[in-house]
């Protein structure tokens, strides 16, 4: 596992990303029992870019996202074929330490899920789990993470009050702070703003654009305009298939596939 994220692949010309590759799905299929939910997905995602997964409900975009930190392992009867590589290494190889993988691949969910603890403890939780005990080190990382998630100024005077007292948008930014505190390489976001009002959504979107300087971000969203606003590349899925992948500007102005055109222009889905 130590070398899992070491090499950075250069995507050969003609492949589907212009950025340095970090994530690669190679002919990946996923089955829930006998049902094939993901069908032979091959996709390469760039490093330190925002990739949006879009598609109608049930298309497999969240399932594919969850492959990246092996969240699907927690579901019975799930079987995977093909490979899912990060930094050139298959994360489904037998020697992979899943705890270590999830440290490297953080996740933010649709509904904010702060622990019923203080704001400080929410951010420090993962660090403590990974053995950080020194208080000044913890203080430093908590502050840096809260600053990075644009929450510091709002909470610096009440760090030791309950996180559950924060607004929905603040809770979601706290979850982002918690995810980035353990310095992941990749952040997965599953509809992170779908339960927020437009102002809180705009803050999350600006935050995502700031975070991509340091992190590789993969986001599932049902909001086409959100995908257009924040992502560099977009993948469109339909009934378990990858229909089209490319630069977001191209997907939203001149998609190659009719199904993509129909979906992004609201004709179906």
């Amino acid at each position: 596992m130590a070398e899992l994220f070491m090499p950075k692949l250069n995507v050969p010309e003609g492949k589907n990303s212009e950025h340095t590759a970090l994530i690669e799905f190679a002919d990946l299929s996923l089955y829930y029992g006998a049902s094939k939910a993901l069908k032979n997905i091959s996709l390469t995602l760039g490093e330190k870019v925002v990739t949006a997964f879009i598609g109608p409900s049930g298309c497999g975009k969240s399932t594919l996202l969850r492959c990246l930190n092996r969240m699907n392992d927690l579901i019975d009867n799930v079987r995977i074929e093909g490979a899912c590589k990060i930094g050139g290494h298959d994360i489904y190889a037998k020697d992979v330490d899943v705890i270590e993988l999830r440290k490297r691949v953080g996740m933010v969910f649709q509904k904010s899920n702060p622990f019923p603890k203080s704001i400080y403890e929410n951010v420090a939780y993962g660090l403590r789990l990974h053995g950080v005990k020194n208080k000044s080190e913890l203080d430093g990382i908590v502050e840096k993470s809260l600053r990075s998630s644009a929450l510091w100024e709002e909470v610096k005077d009440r760090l030791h009050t309950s996180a559950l007292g924060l607004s929905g948008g603040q809770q979601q930014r706290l979850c982002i702070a918690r995810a980035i505190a353990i310095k992941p390489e990749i952040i997965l976001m599953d509809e992170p703003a779908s339960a927020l009002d437009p102002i809180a959504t705009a803050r999350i979107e600006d935050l995502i654009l700031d975070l991509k300087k340091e992190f590789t971000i993969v986001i599932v969203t049902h909001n086409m305009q959100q995908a257009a606003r924040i992502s560099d590349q977009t993948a469109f899925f339909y009934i378990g298939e990858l229909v089209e992948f490319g630069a977001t500007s191209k997907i939203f102005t001149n998609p190659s596939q009719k199904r993509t055109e129909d979906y992004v222009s609201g004709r179906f889905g």
Partner: protein
Amino acid sequence: MENHFEAGIENLRQKLLVMASHAEKSVNEAVQSLMQRNHDLALRVKADDDVIDKYEVEIDEMAIHLLTKAPLASNLRLVTVAMKISQNLERIGDEATKIAKRSRDLAQEPPVKINLDLPRMANLALAMVKDALDSFVQKDSVAARAIIPRDKEVDALNKQIHQQLAQHMMENPDTIARCLNWIVAAKSLERIADHAKNIAEEVVYLCEAQDIRHSH
């Protein structure tokens, strides 16, 4: 935390202002080349036109990119207005190029002995362009509305110059080719004033969300 969308909108606005300064400069130089029979200046206007054309394409690209992000309210108006203003600026650049071309031809011939009110017409058209762009920068719809009736004055001058030149051509058939160049140059100034008026109307829409085109 940076507001990335607002930054994109501001970039578009800045790009439009740079394009506007090029268009304004082109008209100034074209008019000077015509009045001063300056061949070099006329050549420079042609080169500037290529720059203006490039800005038009870039502004359209930026605007389309911003539109995919679903701008709303004043941001939506700004993006659509930016596309229309850039189109008008591109045409102002084209008209400046036409004037410069006629000025090159006229500079190679002896001057036509006729008193035309063309300097006044040029000053009026130039002031309309400048004021329309200022009203955009200041987001001043009152100033923009005040520009619109000034177009009639330019139209009247163009008509007067046209009549004078027609008369002169009948009386001096050897000057027909040169007079036609003056007619085209005056017509281009009249079109420049039209585009300035169009820009002013777009500024009113930008500020007040009211479409006043074809209402006066």
